[in-house]
C-alpha cells in the first residue's frame, strides 16, 4: 500500500499546483474581457463620475497584480472574500448553490451509473443481438441530443402533456422532501440521459476488449454461461477503464450543468458562474472556478486510486518483477 500513499501525495501536490495555475489563468482571462464590474453594473448609465466612485469603492483602481496577490493572501487564510457586486460573503453565496449542484449530481449519478454499467454488461452478454443493437443505438441518440433539447422534450411530455412532474425546480415553499424530489426529477433525468450513453458504451467497449483474451476462451470451453463469463471473468479485468469513465462523468455532472440549470431554473453553481462572468465579479468567478477545478482534481485522484486498487498488478508493482 506504500505506493498508493506515495501516489496520493504526489497527486495532491500536482493538484494544488494545477489549482494555482487555473486561478492565475482565470484571473487574467477575466481581466482581458472588455469592461469591468463598474461598467457592467452601471450599464448604459455609467457616467464617468459614477464609474470612478464605484471603482474606488471596490478597489478596482488598484493594479491587477496587487489585486491578485490580495486575493491569494485571503485564500491562504481560508477567506473566499466578498462578492464585489453585492458585498455578500462568497462562502455564503456559494455554499447553498454548491449544495444544490451536488444534490442534483448525486441524484443523476444514482440513475445514470447503475443504468449505464448494467446495460453495458447486458449489451456484452447479448453482443450483436437485437438487445445490444437497440441499446447502443439508443445511447448514441441520447449522447447526440443537446441537453436543452432533451430537457424540453421531457418537460413537454411529463409536465405539459401528462402533468406528472413540475416544469421548473423553483423550490416550492412548504412542499417537504417529496415535493423537492419531484422538482429535481426532470433535471436529474436530463443529466442522467446525457451521461448514461457514455457509461454504457465505455463499459461495453472495455469488456469487449477483454473478451478477446485467451482466458475468456478457456472459460467458454469450460462451459461457463455468458453472464458468468462477463461478470466473473471479464468485468474485473475491465474495471479500471470503467471506473475512469464513471468518475469523469461524475465530474461532468457537477461542472457541466449550466444549461440544465437555466432550463429548469435550478439555482446551482453553474448559473452563478455565468452571472458572475457577465458582471465581471472576479472573486465569485475565481471561487466557482476553483471549486470546479478542485472537483476535477479530486475525482481524478479518486479514479487513479480506485484503478490501482482494482488492479493487483498496479497495486504491487515491485513484487511482480
Amino acid at each position, binding site marked *: 500500500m506504500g505506493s498508493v500513499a506515495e501516489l496520493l501525495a504526489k497527486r495532491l501536490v500536482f493538484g494544488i499546483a494545477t489549482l494555482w495555475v487555473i486561478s492565475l489563468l482565470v484571473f487574467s482571462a477575466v481581466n482581458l*474581457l*472588455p*469592461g469591468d464590474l463598474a*461598467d*457592467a*453594473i*452601471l*450599464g*448604459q*448609465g*455609467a*457616467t*464617468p*463620475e*459614477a464609474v470612478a*466612485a*464605484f471603482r*474606488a*469603492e471596490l478597489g478596482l483602481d488598484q493594479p491587477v497584480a496587487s489585486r491578485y496577490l490580495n486575493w491569494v493572501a485571503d485564500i491562504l487564510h481560508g477567506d473566499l472574500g466578498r*462578492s464585489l*457586486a*453585492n*458585498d*455578500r460573503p462568497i462562502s455564503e*453565496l456559494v455554499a*447553498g448553490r454548491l449544495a444544490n449542484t451536488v444534490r442534483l449530481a448525486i441524484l443523476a449519478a444514482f440513475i445514470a451509473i447503475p443504468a449505464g454499467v448494467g446495460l453495458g454488461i447486458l449489451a456484452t452478454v447479448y453482443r450483436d443481438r437485437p438487445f445490444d443493437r437497440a441499446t447502443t443505438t439508443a445511447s448514441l441518440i441520447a449522447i447526440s441530443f443537446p441537453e436543452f433539447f432533451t430537457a*424540453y422534450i421531457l*418537460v413537454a411530455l411529463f*409536465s*405539459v402533456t401528462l*402533468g406528472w412532474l*413540475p*416544469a*421548473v425546480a*423553483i*423550490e*416550492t*415553499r412548504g412542499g417537504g422532501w417529496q415535493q423537492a424530489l419531484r422538482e429535481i426529477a426532470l433535471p436529474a433525468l436530463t443529466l442522467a440521459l446525457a451521461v448514461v450513453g457514455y457509461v454504457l458504451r465505455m463499459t461495453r467497449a472495455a469488456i469487449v476488449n477483454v473478451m478477446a483474451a485467451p482466458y475468456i476462451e478457456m472459460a467458454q470451453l469450460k462451459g461457463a454461461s455468458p453472464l458468468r463469463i462477463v461478470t466473473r471473468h471479464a468485468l474485473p479485468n475491465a474495471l479500471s477503464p470503467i471506473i475512469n469513465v464513471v468518475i469523469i462523468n461524475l465530474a461532468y455532472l457537477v461542472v457541466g450543468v449550466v444549461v440544465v440549470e*437555466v*432550463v*429548469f*431554473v435550478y*439555482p446551482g453553481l453553474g*448559473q*452563478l458562474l455565468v*452571472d*458572475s462572468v*457577465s*458582471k*465581471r*465579479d472576479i472573486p*465569485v468567478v475565481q471561487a466557482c472556478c476553483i471549486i470546479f477545478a478542485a472537483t476535477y482534481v479530486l475525482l481524478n485522484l479518486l479514479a487513479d486510486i480506485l484503478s490501482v486498487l482494482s488492479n493487483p498488478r498496479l497495486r504491487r508493482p515491485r513484487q511482480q518483477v
Partner: protein
Amino acid sequence: MSEDVSINRRHAMAGLGLLSAAAALPSLAKAQGPAPKRGGAMRIAIADFATSDSLDPTLAETQFSQNLQWQLRNNLVEVGPGGKLIPELAESWEGSNEARTWVFKLRRGVTFHDGKPFTASDVVHSFNIHRKEGSKSQTKPILNQITSIKAEGPHTAIFELVDGNVGFPALTSAVGLYILKEGDTDFNKGMGTGGYILEQFQPGIKAVVRRNPGYWKSGHANFDSVELICMKDATARANALITGQIDAYNAVDTRTVNLLQRSSAIRINRVKSKAHFSFPMMIDQGPFASNDVRLAMKFAIDRDDIVKRVLGGFGAPGNDHPLSSAYAFYDGTIPQRSYDPDKARFHLDKAGAANLRVQLHVSETPFTGATDAAVLFKGHAAKAGITIDVVKEPEDGYWSSVWNKRPLCTSRWSGRINEDVLFTLGYTADGTKAGWNETRLNDERLNKLVAEARKEFDEGKRRQLYGEVQRIVHGQGGSNIFAFADFLDAVSSKVTHGELSGDWMLDGCRASERWWFS
C-alpha cells in the same frame, strides 16, 4: 385628504400646470371594476435579474429588484396608468419662487415595517444617500439640481433647486428615490413603508415577501404573500405558467405569443410603452455631419418591416423622435416618416454622398433581435444605394465600449419620467456632458426650448415648446428611432387588475400591490 386635493386644485387653477395631473385623481381607490379581493400566494417569474441584485437604492436596478423595491418601499409620488402622477407618501406639493422651491406635504399616520412613524427626516435621509460626495448613484445627475433639502416639522419637506423645474415632483417618482428610514444604511434588510415585509431575499434566485398588515393604502397589497422568481429562459417561464407553477411572468417571447393565447387559462397583457429602439448617428462624425445624409438614412429604413419581423408586430413604428403616445406632450401631428428609397437617394445626391458606405455596430445587449434589425436595415438601405456594413460587437461591455463611442450604433431607451428628463439627458448640450447624448445633438434653439419648458407652468405653452423640440429632433437630429416596443406580460386568468401602467413591465413594476386573485 380631500381637503388637500381641493387646495391643490386651486393652485392648479392659478397656473401650476403640472399639479393638475395629481389633483385630478381625487382618491387612490380605483374606479373601475369590482373591489379588490384579499388573499392568496402570488408567484411572479421575472426575466431580468442578476446575482448582484441588492436593495441598495443607489445601485442600478434590474426589473427584479425594482419589483421588490416597490413591494417594500414607497416614493413620494407614484406614476399611475397613463403616466398620471398619484400622491404617494407626499399628500400634496406646491412649487413657488419660479418653481425653484418645492414644498411637499407628507402623509400622516404612515409607519415603517418596524412601527416607526414616517416623517420628513426620512425623506431628507433618502434623498441625501444619492446626493452625498462620492455617491455612485445613477440618480445623482438628476438630483444635482437640488441645493438643499430640509424638514420643516415632521410633515413637511422643502426642496430648493438651483433653477426652476416644474417637472420636479415627477422626478421624485423615479426608480431609486424610495423613502428609507432615517439613518438606515443596511439596505438589504428591506425596511420601508411598503405593502409587503421582506421574508427572504436570495439574489439571482428568488425573494419572498408577506403582506404588511398595517399598510396605509386601502385596497392595495392584496396577496398574503408574493414570491418573485428569477427565470432567464423564456421557455421555462412559459412552461411554468402553463403548468400552474407561477401566476404571471414578464417579457413574453413574441415568437410564442400566439401559442400562449390559445390557452384560456392564460391572458396576455399588452401595453404600449415608452421604450424605443434606435440607430443613433453622431452628428459631429464623418458623413453624418450633413443633415441630408442623416435624412437619407432615416428614409432608407423600412420601419414596418422591422416592427413586423423583429418585434413580431408587438410594437409601433417610430418617427425619429423619442416620444410615444405614452407621454403627455407627444405631438401626433408630425407626419410619420416612412420608407422611401427615392427620397433617400435625393438627399444623398444633395449631400454629394452617393454610394455612401457606413459601419453599423450592433450587439444583442440593447435589445433581443438587434442584429436582425441591423441586417434588415442593411437590406432596406441597399435599395437606396447605401452600403451598410454590420459590425457585430461583443455583448459584454457594449454600453461602455461601443455605445456613445461609435458614429453609428444600436441603442435602446427605456422610458423616462417626463419629457424634461428625456430631452435634457438625450438631446441637449448638458446631456452630452452627462454622457447620455448619443447623437451629440447641440442645437441652440432646442437647448433653449427645453430650458424654457422646464420653467413653464402653463400646460398649453409647454405642449407648444415640446412640440417644437420634437420637430427639431425629427427634422435635424441624428436619432433614427425606428420602433417603439410593447410590453408583453403573461398572467393566469385567475389574476385581476385595473387599468395597466406602461412605464415598466408588470403594471409599472407594481403588480404585487395593484393586482389580486379573483
